């Protein structure tokens, strides 16, 4: 972990890979998250909605990105964490989460760094494009 006060623009501070997303993982996340939308666990429902298969909850993918972030940055320094869900994350996806220092900013009167964050699958397709503001 980098000491936040030693950060420089361009530093890659977040990097973590995750095992393939299984149906079992989606079922567990359905229960663990309280998000019971059947589109993520019920193949019949997903097909009726026009999808070829079930797919990952966006918030499961964001939870992975959050974990990669707090592995690298002490959670008490986290001020904001945001992401855009760029594309659907398919079953079997092997996610890699990365983040680098984009700029230094003042956030509500506090000196902070803005991290640019991405989550990509094994093909390099972007799933999440996000950012976090951390106190330094």
């Amino acid at each position, binding site marked *: 972990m980098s000491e936040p006060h030693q950060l420089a623009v361009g530093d890659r501070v977040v990097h973590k890979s995750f095992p393939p997303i299984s149906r079992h993982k989606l079922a567990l996340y359905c*229960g663990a998250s*309280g998000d019971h939308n059947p589109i993520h666990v019920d193949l019949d429902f997903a097909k009726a909605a026009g999808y070829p298969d079930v797919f990952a909850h966006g918030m499961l993918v964001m939870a992975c990105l959050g974990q990669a972030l707090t592995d690298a940055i002490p959670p008490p320094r986290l001020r904001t964490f945001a992401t855009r869900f760029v594309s659907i994350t398919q079953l079997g996806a092997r996610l890699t989460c990365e983040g680098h220092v984009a700029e230094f900013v003042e956030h509500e009167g506090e000196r902070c760094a803005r991290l640019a964050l991405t989550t990509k699958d094994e093909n390099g397709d972007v799933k999440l494009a996000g950012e976090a503001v951390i106190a330094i």
Partner: protein
Amino acid sequence: MVDHSVIGRRLAPLTAHVEPGRLRFFRETLGESNPLYNDAAAAKAAGYAATPVPPTYLFCLEMMDAEQAFEFLTVLGADLAQVLHGEQRFAYRAPVMVGDTLLFEPRIAGITDKKGGAMTLAFVETRVTNQHGVHVADCSRTVVVLNKVAA
């Protein structure tokens, strides 16, 4: 199409409890191994009064303890099969920890039609306060509604 008159509408407030067993289920599902989230002593050493929650768990608490987790769909006149999660943002103002009781107060902050009405973006903003009345976080989500366009 989504009725724009729902802008500003408050959804039902809800109270959520940060329960250790449910939180452990979430950590295990995600393979969360950070000592700060798993070991109360490590959390205390880092300055927390109790074990804190991972950064996206607020979203889960809001869904788990809502009597109607998909109330926003009723308000938007959409069903589960036609919506996607477009964006999510959290602003953290104070720690959220095991044992906390949180009040979530969501409202429809905005509605924007896109692509000639083929899709609508709905912005839901939720203020979160704890049992001491401390404003601990704000959560913002963008819901994408894929409108049923007449052929």
